[in-house]
């Protein structure tokens, strides 16, 4: 995979050694940015145009989710350590850190599921208010992306345990990392605008 598609005839300068796949991956992430931009713009507009909006800290469990934010940040660090590990040819660091990242991703999802179910029990639903609708949509689509990331991580981890990556060839780990950090960045923005403001 990592040697991508550069079939030998194309001696054109590929910008500073970016592989075709990594380039395309960044394009995909750029489109994902615009997808969340659409949802976030809708949220901002709806909130700005709304005469009433609940005091967020009274409805949402901010300390719990702050903890969850911490978990996601830690998972970014473990992800980047996994990448640093394979760059240095350290297979056990790669495997351990990938396992840690996967586990942290699952914990994040678990806490989010807990948070959702508590809210739903309090009667805060997507139908009950604009606040609920935007809350579930934004965190829901982020959660879906985390879920997709966890599935990807499982595959990457399995491949790592079968020694599928080497110091020279580890494009899959890099792309997985890029996606995972992207999801982290989205959460950083969402946490601030949904939970804190």
């Amino acid at each position: 995979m990592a040697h991508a598609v550069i079939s030998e005839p194309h001696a054109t300068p590929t910008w500073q050694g970016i592989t075709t796949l990594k380039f395309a991956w960044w394009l995909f992430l750029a489109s994902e940015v615009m997808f969340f931009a659409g949802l976030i713009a809708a949220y901002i507009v709806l909130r700005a145009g709304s005469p009433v909006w609940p005091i967020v800290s009274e409805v949402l469990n901010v300390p719990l989710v702050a903890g969850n934010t911490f978990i996601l940040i830690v998972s970014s660090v473990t992800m980047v350590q996994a990448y640093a590990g394979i760059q240095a040819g350290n297979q056990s660091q790669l495997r351990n850190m990938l396992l840690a990242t996967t586990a942290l991703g699952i914990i994040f999802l678990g806490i989010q599921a807990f948070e959702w179910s508590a809210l739903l029990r309090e009667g805060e639903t997507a139908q009950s208010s604009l606040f609920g609708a935007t809350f579930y949509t934004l965190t829901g689509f982020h959660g879906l992306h985390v879920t997709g990331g966890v599935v990807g991580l499982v595959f990457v981890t399995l491949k790592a345990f079968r020694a599928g990556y080497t110091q020279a060839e580890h494009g899959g780990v890099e792309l997985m990392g890029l996606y995972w950090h992207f999801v982290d960045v989205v959460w950083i923005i969402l946490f601030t605008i949904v939970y804190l403001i």
Partner: protein
Amino acid sequence: MAHPPAAHRAPYMRVFVFLVVLTVLEVLLAFVLAASPAKVPMLIALAIAKATLVAMYYMHLRFESRLLRAIAVFPLILSIVLALAPSFDVLARR
């Protein structure tokens, strides 16, 4: 995929400390400044700082070519346009 060069020993752990500190700061500010008009701009500035740290160091944009950075920055500019014009519209109506 033999890059980015191992020369840059990216300061992953130092960035991590920054991220945690900024997050704690954010949560504290959100409660301390609950009613202050400075709250929203400050929190947004902090969020942007955190996002930038992750993108620059964990996503290695700091060490990437200008082309990749352009791919990352272009949608951000568009997102700002997309969010600002309609919110100005509703705010001015209220």
